[in-house]
């Protein structure tokens, strides 16, 4: 970085610059004290900035209308994942029209590069990236998110539902 110094008569003196700077500081101090709603900084971590719904943060597994996972364990997300952070264990479902479902779905969020390729690969809209991203943990293991974290964490309010359900899909002959 290069600094361009403007040579003029004022910059040769020490005090004018200091006073100008302090003027800005005091102006903001008074503004923040009198109208606190317009203050730009947040009291993090008590207050957090809300990101738009399209922000690609932590993953969400969507659920069907009955609350079960939308995911069919096809592993296309795990195949497409450049960071190799998705682990899925598939199993046979009792309902033959569902056939396959994940009994374990883990995302190592520390490995994840938040590229959104999993979202793009998913053929059934089962994985999305949500607006949350600041999740603290005490050790590495607490950053491996499992199904209960990905689909049913308290902030999701019982899971995010997809528009089209299996029953409707089968009825429509899709």
């Amino acid at each position, binding site marked *: 970085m290069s600094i361009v110094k403007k040579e003029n008569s004022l910059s040769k003196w020490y005090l004018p610059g200091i006073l100008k700077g302090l003027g800005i500081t005091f102006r903001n101090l008074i503004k923040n004290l009198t109208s606190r709603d317009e203050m730009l900084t947040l009291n993090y971590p008590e207050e957090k900035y809300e990101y738009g719904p399209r922000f690609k943060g932590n993953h969400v597994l969507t659920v069907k209308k009955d609350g079960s996972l939308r995911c069919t364990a096809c*592993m296309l997300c795990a195949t497409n994942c450049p960071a190799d952070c998705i682990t899925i264990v598939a199993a046979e479902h009792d309902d*033959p029209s569902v056939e396959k479902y994940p009994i374990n779905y883990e995302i190592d969020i520390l490995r994840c590069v938040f590229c959104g390729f999993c979202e793009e690969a998913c053929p059934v809209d089962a994985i999305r990236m949500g607006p949350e991203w600041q999740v603290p943990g005490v050790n590495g293991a607490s950053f491996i998110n499992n199904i209960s974290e990905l689909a049913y964490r308290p902030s999701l309010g019982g899971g995010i539902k997809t528009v089209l359900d299996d029953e409707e899909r089968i009825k429509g*002959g899709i």
Partner: protein
Amino acid sequence: MPKCTVNGIEVEVKDGATVIEAFMKTNESIAHYCWHPGLSVAGVCRMCMVEIEGNPRLQIACNTPVQDGMVVYNNSEKVKEAVEWTLKFHLINHPLDCPICDQAGECGLQEYYMSHGSYDSEMAERKVKKHKVVDLGEKVVLDTERCILCSRCVRFTDEVTKTNELGIFNRGDRSEIGTFENRPLNNKYSLNTVDICPVGALTSKDFRFRQRVWFLKSFETICQGCSAGCNVQAYYNENGFYRVKPVPNEEVNGHWMCDEGRDVYKFANKEHRLVSGIKKEDSGLSHMAPGAAAVQLREDLSDTKKAALVLTGQYTTEEYLKFVDSFTKNYGNEVYHWINNPKTFDDFDGILLRGDKNPNTVGLLRVLEGKGIKSSWADLEEKLNSGQIEHLVVAGPENLAVFPDLEEKVTLFGQAQKLTVLTPVKSKFYESADYQIPMKSFMEKDGTFVNHKGIEQKLGRGPIVVSQALTLLDLSMILDGSDFISVNSASMGGSL
């Protein structure tokens, strides 16, 4: 020997060969679902259309015999269009649920669907719904929606096993593969139907949903399950082995293998393996590195006057040669052959399965003959009963499932003052042994198996599961006085 020209390449085929065989010989690609080299010709899928010069209409390659001077090609626009339309007919009722289908990644239909790329169906009618997840038998699951009715599986049960369990029921677009009432698909070769199914209609219960095929790597080796010596392809990833499939070899197994042989990967996986050398001491069992246990075994053996060796037919010929050599040189001529099932040893079911459940009995017998060893099992029993054997070394089996007499035999061996078991797999029956030394499984080593016919076949080395485990070659070097194992034999190549 008629000659024909396939896509401009001249090729000579056997008398009576069909055009598709000429294509296979030239390695030119030709779409086909119902034709299989090991089965009769059905000509039902209509995918192998070819243009024959001088013939105005397209013909199917699988049912057209080659005539001398025939000029055939399948790369013209006319053929491509015909194949595309045939594919569209196949896809009318196919659910195209590739993401949850286990065949995805190795499916003929998926391959051509992707290459022809008609993502929007031109059919206005709804797809016919059929049965999903139909339980056909102990090992196979059927999805009738995905089935394209190529009839390969039906012909397999007709022609190869001659058990006729499968049939095509109903007519038209309601046709389905199925079994008859109270006659499930339970023959000993049922999983071959899964291999030959060109789509994901037939799936194996063992492999179903456990792994996507594109995550698996593979290598070719020889089946360890019996003395037939079928050529197989073993599939694995970093978590271990997942499945075994047959590799065609006309001389040995044709195109097939038995269902028992498909379980041979299981004992090679880490959860079944002995991973450290174990020595029984007064204070209990002490675990140590396999090499260290082998060195202690050598010191123990050098004090012994009367040592004997028991071999099973589950190791490679190279190992037998070297190990029998160094054992007899150091400790005398007491070498015995453990036959696991003497009553059914010479059985043969007419297709592949042999009663001798060891892959290399012939190799072992050849080595013993070469060394002039003619000891019988009765001698060993007598010597053990009279307490003449001080230290017995047993090169135990890998595949414990085919050794029903294991417990009985280990109790018999326990009559020796000291017992050493060399074994790739752990078993609770070995806990009484003084030494347990882990060996490599057949998936992890080079070598030769000699099958019942005397055909020598090389094993293909796969990934190393237990890198510290020894082979009999390593052990014979240690018995000969070397204190270290060469880098060459210890763990070269990939590791899991």
